[in-house]
Structures are given as C-alpha cells and as structure tokens.
C-alpha cells in the first residue's frame, strides 16, 4: 500500500472504532439538597450497573428542575415540592409520579436561642417567636422546595416576614447554612443537609417533629409526548428502581452509620394521603 493512503485509512479505522452506538444517557434533574445529602452518589452507580444506562445527574434549583421537565431538557426528576409538582402534572409535562421517600425539615439556630424557640413543637409558633423577636433568620429565597415550605409556614401564621434580620441568600442549603452559622441566625433546613454539614456549623437543632415539616420526595418521568428525544424507557426504569424494595431498603439505612440516624424514610407504595401531602 502506498504510504499516502495509510494515514486516511488509519483515521477511518479510529472513527469507526469510536462510533459504537452508546446507550442514550439519562438526564436526571434533581435539587441541590438531594444531591448534597449524598444519597444519589450511592444509588446512581447501582442503577447504572443494573440497567446499563449512563445517568447524568444535574443538581439545580427546584424551579430549574421543573423548568427542565417543561422544556424537555431532562428525562426524569427527583424533587420535593409537591404543590409545584402537581401543577407540572396537571399541565401534562410529567407522565408518571411515584412517591419515593421523605425526610423532614428542622429549624436550626444559635445555641443561645435569642428567640426562645428551643423544643417548641409547632413550627408556626417558632416562626412567630422569631419574627416578633426580630432576630436573624436566613431564608433560601430561591423558589426551591425548601423555600416554598418556609413560605407556606409563614402564610399559615399570617406573617409576611420583613425585618432587617430576615435575609434571603438565594443559594443552596449548604451555603445558606454557612451564612446562618456565620451570622448566628436561625434558618430552616432539611435534616440531611444539616447532618452532613454540622461539623462546619455553629448551629443546633431547635424545632423538629411538626407534621408540617415533612419533606416528601417524588420521582417524575417527563412526558415523552411533548418532545422527541426524551429517554422515557430509561426514566421509567429509574422510577421503578427508586421504588423497588432493594433500593427502599438502602434508603432506609442511608446515613445511620455516619450520623447515627437515617437521613431519609422510605415511602414507596404508600399513598400521598398517608403522608398528608397532595
């Protein structure tokens, strides 16, 4: 063979070798709190190995995750904003919506507790105390599931929070906790993120256990009718994986070794009504 034709043949061989059809990637849009808990770092590799799909986990704000579903930029969602999720389903952007797990929100604050909320059982009462004592409170202020829950509790006690100490970080839970710790202010956080970060924080759990503080996660498959290249098969496989008995068992135990308590509680196959959400 002439030397001059060897190079193009070599390039052709390389291109052909690289052109093996790869299984379509699965884009999972989830929230920053979910990602920060570390649960997906455990579960996603297991799913990838079992199913052969490559999962691209994109942790964004709740609002962006839902928007991605609307615009067909994600295949499956794992989020925790039930009322916004319902709107998404009603508008036809989601196909299947399955209950996966829940954890809870807690109020954390400085150990000297200037607003005297420690061991109150009502979240609403705690916020009333914080508001009337005008002490520092850091809100997510970013339209996330956590933020929406906080706004809902303010609404339930008829207060529109607006005093100098009430600030909005517009960032994820980890960053917001650091701000609260630095400013020795209160904030509302999901238990998982708090536990994962508590070594870096100067905050303690003040209020927990109120029913309204339940944080419920659903997995939603994006409706393939709206968009051509949605990986619906992969999305459904992921949804079924998250609600399978084996995965639910893993979820139940996640965190016990490291924090002495589980970070999430498994709920697959229960009904939303049992948990008091829509």
């Amino acid at each position, binding site marked *: 063979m002439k030397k001059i034709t060897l190079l193009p043949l070599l390039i052709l061989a390389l291109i052909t070798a690289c052109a093996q059809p790869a299984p379509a990637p699965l884009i999972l849009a989830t929230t920053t709190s979910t990602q920060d808990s570390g649960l997906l770092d455990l579960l996603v590799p297991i799913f990838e190995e079992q199913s052969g799909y490559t999962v691209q986990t994109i942790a964004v704000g709740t609002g962006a995750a*839902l928007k991605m579903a609307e615009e067909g930029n994600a295949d499956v969602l794992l989020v925790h904003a039930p009322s916004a999720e319902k709107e998404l389903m009603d508008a036809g952007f989601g196909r299947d919506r399955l209950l996966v797990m829940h954890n809870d929100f807690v109020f954390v604050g400085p150990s000297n507790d200037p607003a005297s909320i420690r061991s109150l059982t009502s979240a609403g009462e705690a916020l009333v105390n914080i508001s009337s004592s005008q002490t520092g409170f850091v809100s997510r202020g*970013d339209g996330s599931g956590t933020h929406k829950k906080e706004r809902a509790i303010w609404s339930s006690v008829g207060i529109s929070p607006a005093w100098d100490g009430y*600030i909005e970080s517009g960032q994820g839970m980890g960053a917001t906790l650091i701000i609260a710790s630095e400013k020795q202010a209160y904030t509302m956080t999901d238990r998982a993120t708090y536990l994962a970060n508590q070594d870096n924080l100067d905050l303690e759990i003040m209020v927990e256990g109120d029913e309204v503080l339940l944080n419920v996660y659903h997995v939603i498959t994006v409706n393939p009718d709206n968009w051509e290249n949605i990986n619906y098969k992969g999305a459904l496989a992921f949804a079924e994986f998250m609600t399978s008995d084996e995965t639910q068992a893993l979820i139940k135990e996640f965190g016990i070794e490291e924090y002495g308590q589980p970070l999430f509680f498994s709920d697959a196959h229960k009904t939303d009504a049992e948990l008091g959400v829509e």
Partner: protein
Amino acid sequence: MTFPPEVLQITILSLQISALATGISLLIGLPLGTLLALGKFWGRSFFLSIVNTGMGLPPVVVGLFVAMMLWRSGPFGDMNLIYTPMAIIIAQTVISAPVVIGLTAAALQSLDPRLRLQLYGLGASRWQMIWALWREARLPLLAALMAGFGSVISEVGASMMVGGNIRHQTRVLTTAIVLETGKGNFEIAIALGILLLTITFLVNWALTWIQQRGEE
C-alpha cells in the same frame, strides 16, 4: 416576564464593587508593575512569573481562600467582613491586581529602552521619567485597566462565596443571574446577562475613547 424589582440597586452595587476593586488594583498595580518592569533587584524574574501566574488564578479558589480568611473561624473573623460588599471588593481586588500588575509590567517593558536613557539625558528626575513612561505607554496601560475591570465585573465564583448573594446587601448582577437560572427563569437570567454586557460595553467604550484620544 418581570425583572426583579431591585435590578437598578443590583446593577449599581455591581458597578460600585467592581469599580472600587479595579481602582484599588490600579493604585497598587501601577507602581508594582512599574517596579517589576524597570527595577533591577534579585528575584525580579521570579516575582514577575508569580504575577503572570496570578493572572490565571481561578476566581472561585480566590473566593474560597478569602472566605476562609474572613469566616468567624478564620484569622480575620472578628472584623465581620464576611457577606459584606467589602468582602467582595477584597476578593475582586485579589483577582484583578495580578492582571493589572502583569500587563503594566509588560506595557512598560515593551517601550524602547533608549527612551529611558533619553529622558535621563534631558535631566528628568525619577518621578518625571516614570510619569513620562506612563504617558508613553498609555495605550497598553489603559488596556490593562480594561482587562482588570473585565476580570471582575463578570466574576461570579468569588462573589458568591464571600458575598453570599444576600438580597439587598450583596447580590450583584452575576450572582443574580445564577439565582434566576436556578429558579428556572431563563428569560430573566438572559436579560440580566445582556444588561451586564451592556454595562461592561459602556464602561469599555469610555475607556477606549480615552485610550484612543489623540491617536489620529
């Protein structure tokens, strides 16, 4: 589509912070760059290399470092600077100073070395000579200024870490864009991006006009 109502406040804050940071960078950068360009001292090349490396410092790493300094757990925690506009100014100065220093040094070194001898020969004092050299190199020096400003007005990692993106206090255009994107408000995010570009363009237009004056 509605702009967040505080867009004007956010824009003005962004400009104030970045202008101040660039200004401080100029104040320390111009003399330091001149020293590195014209001075003869041991380690000059070494320091110049450090400065040139500094031009490529990842802003988010600068942000992390400054945050660690300013957190309550850090050495300067008592000054309560974390999550204030001052903290962002500090971080942005650290980012833009190497740019200004490095480009100043390059600008002055690119001048004809005989010019210096000529000025000394004409009886110029050290300060008169430096001033004359600055005037001679004003094109690349103004470019250094624009590069310094550009490196911070568009910066988001450090501003987020040390500023905290706190509404009404430390939210700037770039961190607001991140927030709106995270909320899924892509149109608002893009509009803020265009606003940022427009502001940056106007500033650079003014500086370019100064730079090009008298170059006809």
